[in-house]
């Protein structure tokens, strides 16, 4: 019976320790004893782009004694959106949040976000006169302003200066047509005709193509989504040309796992890539066998029209009215020249306002950094494409069908257009 007693005792110990675990762990209450307003900020992004947000919040907490901002990391953009939606279903959530572009319209229309119009124009507003392009348009939904850009990126062309010199090309391409022609002349082959170096490595993303389409006078959609034109003649022409380049070996779409287009570039297997400033430092460090340089994207028949990338900030409607001023003061803080410059330096995103560039002057003196920031005035701050999952998904799928699987350009784009039109109805349906 000794054995049984031991068993009983171990069960009892187990039960006791269980109670201990369960009752020893109630949720920590936010300490508001110092009378400061608690503001919760949800963010995404990792590495410097994530850490810098924590640092800015700390600096904000140190500069005033009205509010304490606590920053909470919520995974990638998709995870963050899922969390915001679940929290909203339960009437909880943060006061201020980082937000990608996909969710702006849906969230704003559902009443989840606060209209920031009065705040940005108010006494303690933000002077947006030096913001590039129409950056505020992205956050405009049905007459309100629900989102402000924060982590902004611009298109950047990276090119292998050695390869250019070898081919006796002096300057980066000025037009899209030149760029595609250069892709051909920069391609080198061995005696068997196998490609040694591709002229252009494409990112498996439609973002760089938007700038090309807009610059040549094409459109993906009208601002109100009433007229979706994924099969616009400009887009058809662009894809046809790219498909031709891929078929001949002048261009390639490398797989993501191998490091994608960036690895192709840094290893010298591709002479040009269309990218953003985010990987700038990495690319510079890893391109050891040649001299990498940056340039702006080329111009098209309409000049230079660039698509911005990145994310922004929004305030949630659940924030009590008496706390909204405080929540706004944090948003405002993040978008001051000093903070934009600080964030740009830490994260690799852009110091996207002129005043922020003045603050970050020393850091921007580096020639390549300067070139990157030269793209800003040409931004069309219209995230419309990235604001609609229906359109973006259809467009991305078309990219892969045409450039990876080699399907017929016209057929694929027409089908993509139909798919986008079918699903946009669902997205736009009144709620």
């Amino acid at each position: 019976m000794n054995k049984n007693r031991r068993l009983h005792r171990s069960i009892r110990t187990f039960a006791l320790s269980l109670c201990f675990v369960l009752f020893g762990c109630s949720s920590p209450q936010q300490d508001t004893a110092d009378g400061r307003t608690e503001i919760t900020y949800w963010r995404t992004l990792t590495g410097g782009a994530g850490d810098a947000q924590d640092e800015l919040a700390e600096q904000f907490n140190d500069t005033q004694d009205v509010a304490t901002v606590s920053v909470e990391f919520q995974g990638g953009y998709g995870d963050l959106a899922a969390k915001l939606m679940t929290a909203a279903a339960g009437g909880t959530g943060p006061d201020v949040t980082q937000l990608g572009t996909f969710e702006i319209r849906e969230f704003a229309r559902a009443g989840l976000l606060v209209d920031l119009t009065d705040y940005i124009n108010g006494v303690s507003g933000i002077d947006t006169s030096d913001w590039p392009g129409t950056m505020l348009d992205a956050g405009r939904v049905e007459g309100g302003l629900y989102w402000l850009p924060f982590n902004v990126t611009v298109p950047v062309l990276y090119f292998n200066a050695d390869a250019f010199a070898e081919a006796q090309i002096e300057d980066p391409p000025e037009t899209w047509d030149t760029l595609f022609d250069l892709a051909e002349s920069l391609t080198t082959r061995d005696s068997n005709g196998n490609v040694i170096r591709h002229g252009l490595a494409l990112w498996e993303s439609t973002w760089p193509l938007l700038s090309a389409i807009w610059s040549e006078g094409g459109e993906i959609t009208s601002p109100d989504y009433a007229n979706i034109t994924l099969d616009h003649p400009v887009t058809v022409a662009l894809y046809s040309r790219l498909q031709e380049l891929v078929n001949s070996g002048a261009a390639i779409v490398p797989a993501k796992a191998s490091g994608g287009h960036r690895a192709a570039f840094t290893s010298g297997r591709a002479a040009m890539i269309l990218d953003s400033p985010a990987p700038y430092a990495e690319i510079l460090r890893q391109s050891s066998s040649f001299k990498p340089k940056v340039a702006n994207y080329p111009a098209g028949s309409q000049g230079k029209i660039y698509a911005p990338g990145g994310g922004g900030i929004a305030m949630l409607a659940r924030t009590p009215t008496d706390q909204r001023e405080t929540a706004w003061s944090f948003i405002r803080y993040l978008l001051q020249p000093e903070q934009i410059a600080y964030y740009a330096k830490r994260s690799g995103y852009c110091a996207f306002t002129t005043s922020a560039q003045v603050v970050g002057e020393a850091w921007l003196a580096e020639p390549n950094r300067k070139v990157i920031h030269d793209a800003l005035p040409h931004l069309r701050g219209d995230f419309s494409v990235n604001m609609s999952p229906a359109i973006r998904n259809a467009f991305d799928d078309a990219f892969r069908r045409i450039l990876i699987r080699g399907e017929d350009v016209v057929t694929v784009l027409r089908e993509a257009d139909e798919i986008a039109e079918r699903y946009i109805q669902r997205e736009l349906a009144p709620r």
Partner: protein
Amino acid sequence: MNQHRFIRLAGLLLIVSVLTLPFYWMVVTALQPPGALVTGAHAWWPSEMHWANFSDAWNAAPFGQFFVNSAATGVAATTIQVLGAILMAYAFAVIQFPAKSVIVIAVIATMAVPEEAKLVPNFLLMRDFEWIDSYWALIVPPAAHAFPVFVLYQWFRTIPTSMRDAARADGAGHWRTLWLIYVPMSRPAIAAVVVIAFLGRWNDFLWPLIVTNTAEMRTLPIGLAYLRGLEETGNQWPVLMAGSLLVILPVLLLYAVAQRQFVEGITRGAIKG
């Protein structure tokens, strides 16, 4: 005969090396210097042993706190899950009750409910219980799980009724019969269920992400999210794989310890049907 043995060994080596290849690849990648992958230098052996990946991974997020949380909530949830399953499986296998088979089927059928479909309704419950961002949310809802009930139910049914009758003749009720006969005779099955339940908790990502907000309450798989790259920059594979190994190693050790019991455990119930 020797030739036979050689063929068997060769077959074994082939299958097992394919099975362990991903694990091996994680280890090799975790030891590569940063950028080795990008420059295309990746190979079957690290170009240099870059142990710093492990400390980089560890420092990228409050992993120490996450370890404590994962371990504490994992142990507690496993305990509740297994205790509940033992009691329920015994009731299902031994005790008489009207329409018992309907209840049994209703419980087993819940294996067919995907976790992702339960996220929102259960989140609403957590809010009502005021369990958001607490251990409670990580422990209690996941404890309702049909698989351990299914395994133990199958197992208990194989224990001969004569054992139970003898205990009853000694004056033992159900409670004592369970703890003095069924549980000691089912140690392997219980060990198996413990390992499976614990692994389920240890590896869960979505539910902990949804119900916790602060680093104080978060678990290891969320820590891995800190290591994933930005959409704009791509993954830093060596650090990501080093972090993954840090998460996996404790459970591998647990399995190594529990292995013997485990191997015997899960199957007997299945065999006798």
